[in-house]
């Protein structure tokens, strides 16, 4: 690896120390354009308003900070669900441990495959490029240099969910994954993601949801204590389409999840939800940007964080209602449960509305455990720890309830319950 030349410019240092992967030619123009975007926007620095609550330096740095592997004897998530599994180890596709990429109603290719032409050429990097109402240079960096990922073209109603499993095997891995999901009109797919991915992960997922299509997304980020991740979802929604995304995060040194949703067709629905448990030196940031650019659309943001022992939770959520986006129904809530005095929750809810016939509401709360409820439970014989867990789980359940599929909801709740129990 070359020595950094311009010590004082992190963007230049990073660009000098990153190599374009040996990738398909069709991604070339998109990657070139993305490099330009990075150079224009510059990688985030601490002074950036959009990174006020989360330090970007370890995500920007040309070397990924090492992250010890976390030995986890819990069973694999989603094991009870019939699904098509695709495994990435430290950000590299593992063919042997993945299922055949064949399923009715969907075509799956790898980004790393050297096909000549590809439908994804139109989409790759384009939703990311359109998502910079606020600069997201780490996403552009990803488009420019992502080495692997999947290209999923959903043409019908898929019978099984697709499960992307991310394993972390090396203490110094630095993964850059870029997925593109394109749903044709009326198509439906459920995408599951789980695992810690790498010591450091930069992920972009572009989701193009055509008219009447439905995209369901449930993600559980691995609990490796030292891993870092910055993820970006860019979604574009057509008329009467549905986009529902839920993320469960437990620990991890640093997590920044950005979700950018554009409602471009009338009557579209977007729900973005997250439940997060941080215990110790963990920093978790949800940054959501929903743009209403059509009539009669509904959006919901529901985020719940439970923090203790110095954990920090951040929520930056915005609803932008463009001129003409009448009858918009926008909702946003972010809440934290602080289990001690050492934890912090930082919230920046934003509404920006240019239409006059809309219903938008937002709220943010931060509180301790309800002592009255705690005493009530204890007076019935439930120990303080168990009662705290019950109340904590109840608090998080409101976000988990945003998952539409019953089995997935139960899976998430069971996993959360187990995690809370193990902490004791």
């Amino acid at each position, binding site marked *: 690896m070359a020595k950094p030349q311009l010590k004082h410019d992190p963007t230049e240092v990073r660009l000098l120390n990153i190599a374009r992967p040996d990738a398909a030619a069709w991604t070339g123009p998109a990657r070139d354009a993305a490099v330009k975007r990075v150079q224009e926007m510059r990688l985030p620095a601490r002074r950036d308003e959009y990174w006020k609550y989360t330090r970007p330096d370890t995500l920007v740095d040309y070397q990924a900070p090492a992250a010890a592997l976390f030995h986890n004897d819990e069973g694999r998530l989603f094991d009870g669900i019939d699904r098509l599994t695709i495994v990435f180890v430290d950000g590299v596709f593992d063919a042997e441990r993945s299922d055949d990429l064949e399923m009715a109603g969907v075509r799956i290719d790898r980004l790393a495959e050297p096909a000549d032409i590809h439908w994804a050429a139109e989409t790759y990097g384009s939703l990311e490029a359109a998502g910079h109402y606020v600069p997201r240079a780490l996403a552009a960096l990803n488009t420019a240099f992502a080495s692997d990922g999947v290209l999923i073209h959903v043409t019908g109603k898929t019978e099984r969910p697709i499960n992307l499993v991310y394993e972390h095997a090396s203490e110094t891995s630095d993964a850059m994954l870029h997925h593109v999901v394109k749903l044709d009109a009326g198509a439906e797919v459920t995408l599951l993601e789980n695992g810690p991915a790498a010591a450091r992960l930069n992920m972009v997922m572009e989701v193009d949801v055509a008219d009447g299509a439905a995209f369901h997304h449930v993600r559980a980020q691995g609990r490796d204590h030292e891993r870092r991740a910055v993820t970006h979802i860019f979604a574009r929604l057509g008329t009467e389409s549905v986009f529902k995304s839920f993320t469960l995060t437990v620990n991890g040194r640093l997590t920044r999840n950005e979700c950018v949703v554009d409602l471009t067709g009338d009557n579209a629905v977007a729900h973005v939800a997250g439940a997060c448990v941080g215990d110790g030196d963990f920093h978790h940031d949800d940054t959501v940007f929903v743009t209403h650019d059509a009539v009669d659309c509904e959006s919901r943001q529901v985020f719940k964080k439970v923090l203790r022992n110095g954990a920090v939770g951040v929520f930056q959520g915005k609803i932008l209602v463009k001129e003409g986006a009448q009858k918009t129904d926008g909702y946003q809530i972010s809440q934290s449960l602080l289990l001690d005095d050492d934890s912090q929750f930082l919230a920046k809810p934003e509404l920006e509305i240019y239409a006059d016939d809309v219903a938008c509401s937002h709220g943010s709360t931060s509180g301790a455990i309800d002592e009255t409820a705690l005493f009530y439970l204890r007076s019935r014989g439930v120990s303080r720890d168990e*009662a705290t867990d*019950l109340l904590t789980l109840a608090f998080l359940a409101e976000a988990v309830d945003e998952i539409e599929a019953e089995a997935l909801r139960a899976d998430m709740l069971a996993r959360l319950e187990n995690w809370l129990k193990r902490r004791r």
Partner: protein
Amino acid sequence: MLEIKNLHASLEEEDKAILKGVDLTVEAGKVHAIMGPNGSGKSTLSYVLSGKDGYEVTDGTATLEGEDILDMEPEERAAAGLFLAFQYPVEIPGVGNMTFLRTAVNAQRKARGEEEMSATEFLKVVRARARTLNIDAEMLKRPVNVGFSGGEKKRNEILQMAMLEPKMCILDETDSGLDVDAMKLVADGVNALRAEGRGFLVITHYQRLLDHIKPDVVHIMADGRIVKSGGPELALEVENNGYADILAEVA
């Protein structure tokens, strides 16, 4: 069963004495009632006995079957057999009533070194006991006390009591907010639990609950002490003449 001697307690935050020397013994198999005007310390007594935060015991003792309960955590008191039916049962959004009941039953069993109740056995027992209290499956599924009417909340308290089978039951103004029919239902639930090995302490403002739950002994509490004790006729006296006469008499 429950023996309280010279119990003094004050509010931690205000350093204000509320209980000023309560002496009371409830024998197994007996129902004792405590009546008294507002502010006499009745509810405080129930909270101090069950271990609620915010109160400081400054003197005296309280034992359950000879065991000092004042040093125990609330959950330990519960496992030892103490139960408080709350005046204002707490709503707990997100925690299903059934989950709550099963967690409580098994937590107490575990604390006592007993085997946990299996899910099927629990379901059978809870359904049977709920039925006698007119609690339907829907109420069992809902989050604890959330959206329950006043009567439903109190019935839910009695259901918890029936499931936990405590040795010593304290009912804090269980009649408050109940209409006549609901009170009858709750009283029937309590009466069904009357047993030789179980003591009851019924705290109430009014005599009417005691028409349904017939007490063996009635105590009058005023200014943090038991000022007069007697048979059921004492409750009637209060109903007819109010507290003024009794308080004047003991002053």
